[in-house]
C-alpha cells in the first residue's frame, strides 16, 4: 500500500524533473526561432514553456504535500524540497528569458546570432547535467558527483562565452549604447540559467554528504 504511494510519488518527481529539462529545451528552441525570425514557432515554444512551468509548479506543490503528509524521507525531506524548489527556479528563469524576448524584441546583430545560440546551448547543457545529477541522487547516488562536475564545467563555459560576448558587444561601433546595453541583458540572463543550475548542484553536493556521510 505504502510502496504503491511512493511509486506514484517517484513518478511525479521524475515528471517534475522532465518538465524542468523540457523547459530548458523550449528556451533553446525559442531563442533559435526568435533569431530565425520565425514568430509562429517562437510563440509556440513560448506557450509550451509557459504551460510546462505551470504544470511543474503544480507538481512541485503536490510532491511537497505528499512528502509531508505521508512523513516520507524525514531526514532528507528538507534537502529534497530545497532541490526541487531550486530546480523550479531554473525553469522560472527559462520562462522569464523567453518572455523577455517576446516583450522586448531585442535587436541582435546577425553576426552575433550564433554566439547567442552557443551560449544558450552551453547553459542548457548545464541544466541537462543538473537534472541528471538530481535524478541520480534519488536512484544512483554514486554517479551524482560525475554529473555535478559536468554541470560545473558547462557553467564555467557559459561564463566564458557570456563574458566574451559582452566584451564583443561593447567593442562594436555599429550599434547604439542603448542597444548594446539591451542585448547585454539577454546574454547575462541566459548565462544566469547555468548559474542557477550550478546552485542546484551546490545544494546537491551537501545533500549527498548528508545522506551517507
Amino acid at each position: 500500500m505504502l510502496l504503491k504511494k511512493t511509486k506514484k510519488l517517484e513518478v511525479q518527481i521524475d515528471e517534475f524533473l522532465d518538465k524542468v529539462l523540457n523547459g530548458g529545451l523550449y528556451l533553446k528552441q525559442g531563442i533559435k526561432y526568435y533569431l530565425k525570425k520565425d514568430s509562429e514557432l517562437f510563440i509556440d515554444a513560448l506557450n509550451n514553456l509557459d504551460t510546462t512551468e505551470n504544470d511543474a509548479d503544480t507538481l512541485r506543490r503536490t510532491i511537497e504535500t505528499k512528502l509531508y503528509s505521508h512523513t516520507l524521507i524525514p531526514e532528507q525531506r528538507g534537502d529534497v524540497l530545497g532541490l526541487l524548489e531550486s530546480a523550479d527556479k531554473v525553469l522560472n528563469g527559462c520562462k522569464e528569458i523567453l518572455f523577455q524576448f517576446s516583450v522586448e524584441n531585442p535587436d541582435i546583430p546577425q553576426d552575433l546570432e550564433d554566439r547567442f545560440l552557443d551560449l544558450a546551448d552551453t547553459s542548457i547543457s548545464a541544466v541537462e547535467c543538473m537534472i541528471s545529477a538530481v535524478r541520480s541522487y534519488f536512484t544512483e547516488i554514486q554517479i551524482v558527483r560525475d554529473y555535478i562536475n559536468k554541470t560545473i564545467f558547462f557553467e564555467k563555459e557559459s561564463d566564458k562565452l557570456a563574458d566574451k560576448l559582452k566584451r564583443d558587444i561593447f567593442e562594436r561601433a555599429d550599434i547604439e549604447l542603448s542597444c548594446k546595453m539591451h542585448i547585454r541583458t539577454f546574454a547575462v540572463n541566459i548565462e544566469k540559467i547555468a548559474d542557477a543550475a550550478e546552485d542546484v548542484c551546490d545544494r546537491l553536493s551537501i545533500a549527498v554528504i548528508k545522506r551517507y556521510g
Partner: protein
Amino acid sequence: MAWFYLLSGLFLGWNLGANDAGNIFGTATSTKVLKYTTAVVISSIFVLLGAMISGYGAAHTIGELGDVNAIAGSFTVSLSAALTVFLLMKKGLVVSVSQSIIGAIIGWNLFTSSPTDIKSLAEIVFSWILNPVLAGIFSFAAYYVLIRILKKSKLHLLETDQHLKRLTILVIAFGAYSLGANNISKVVGVFMSSSPFTDIRITETFVITGMYQLFFTGALSIVIGIITYSNKTTETVGKRIFKLTPLSSISVIFGASLVLFLFSSTMIDKALNSVGLPSFPLVPVSITQAIVGGVMGIGFAKSGRYLNYKILGKIGLGWIITPLASAVICLIFLFIAQNVFNREVYKTFSFETNKEVIKQIMSAEIPVDYLLKNRDTTFNSQQEFRYYLSRLGYTKEDHIYNIFKIAKLEYYRIDSNYAKEKMSPNRYTQDQINSVKSLHNQSFNHKWMLINKLEMLSEDWQSLPAVYSNEYYNRELRIKLNTVCDYFYIK
C-alpha cells in the same frame, strides 16, 4: 507484606522501561521514522517475549553471585541499586542498573558475611568492558554493510526509505527482545531465591511456575515503564544524547541489541559451544553503555579517528564508582532495615565440618590442614563460620565461597511420588528419574551429598569433561540438578 517487598524490584523495572526503552526507539520516534504508539506497542510485546523466553540465563548468574534469600533483603538490595543510579545520574555519570545491582549484591554479601563467587564476579566485570567494545564493533560493521548495500542498490530514495522503516521496526523489536532477555535479570535476579510466587496448576500437565510468574511480573513492570514514561525520555535520547541519521541509529541499536542478546542467549551459547568455542557469559549488561559504544563505532566508521575519551572516561568511572557506592548504600540500608525496622534481611544457615565435608573440600583442591585439627564443629550462622575460617587462615574468597557451599547444612528428603509428579520425561531421562526415585525416603544434610549420590546412580547425571564443547551441556545439567535438589529441599 511479601508483595510490598517486590515493589522495589518493580520500581527498578519501571525505571528500565522508562529510560532504556527510550534508547531503543528514541531516535526512530523523534525523527518521525516511526509513530510513538507503534514503537511502544512493538517494544512492549518484545520486551515481554524476551524476558519470558530468554531471561533466565542472565538472571541465574545474578542469583549465583549472591543468593539473596530473604525478601526484605531483596527489597533493600533493589532499592539501593535504584537509589544509587538515581544519585549518580544526577552527577552526570554514565551509570547503569547493571553495575549498581552487582554492587548492592556484594553489599548484601558483605553484610551477611556470605562469600562472593569471584568467578561470576569476574565474568560480570569482564562483560562490562566487553559490552561497549563489542557494541562499537558490531555497530561499525552493521553501518559499513548497510552503506555498501544501499550505495550499490539502485533503489529510489523513497523506496530505500520504506525499506529502512521496515528495518527500523525489526531492529526495534530485536532491541526490545534483547532488553527484556538481558535486563529482566536486574529486575527479578535478586528475588529468585525469595520469590513470593507459588506454582499455579492449570491442568494436570500445565503448570505456571512461580519463576515464570516472577519473570512475567518483572517484564510487566518494564512494559508499564515504557507505556507511562518513555515519551519523556525518548525526546531526550533522540535529540540530545546523540543526533543520528536513521541509518546510523539502525546500526547503533542493532549493534547494542546484538551484544545484549549475546550476553543473554542460551541458544548462541549452545551454538558456540557445539563448535568448540567459548561462550559469552550470561550476565546483565547496560544498554546505555552499549549504545554509547555503538555511537563511537559509527563515529569511527565515518571519520576514522573519532573517539570521545571524555565519554569513555565517564563510563570507566561509572564502572568503579557505581558498584562501590551501591555496595555502601546497600550496607547502610540493610543495617537500618535489620536494626531499626526489625526485618529479616537474610536467612541464617548452619555449617558443619565433619569428616565427609572435609573430604569433599579436599576434592575441590582446597587446603584442609587447619580444618582437620578442628573436625566435627557446627556453626550456627554465616558470620560465625566466616570468622572461624578467617581465624584458620583462609583468605582467598573463592576458597571461602566453596567451603561455604560444601559445609552449608541443607536438608533434603527424597519422595519417589513427588519425583514422579514433578520430573517430566520431556525434561529428564528415564534413567535420571529412576535414580531419584531409587533414593525414596533417604535424607541428605548437604546438597553436594545428594548430587554425588545421583551421579553415582546414573551416568546421565555425570558432567562431561570440562572442554568448551561440553560447557553448555554441563551448565544445563547443573541447572537440572539444582532444580531436582530444590524439589526435595526441606525449608
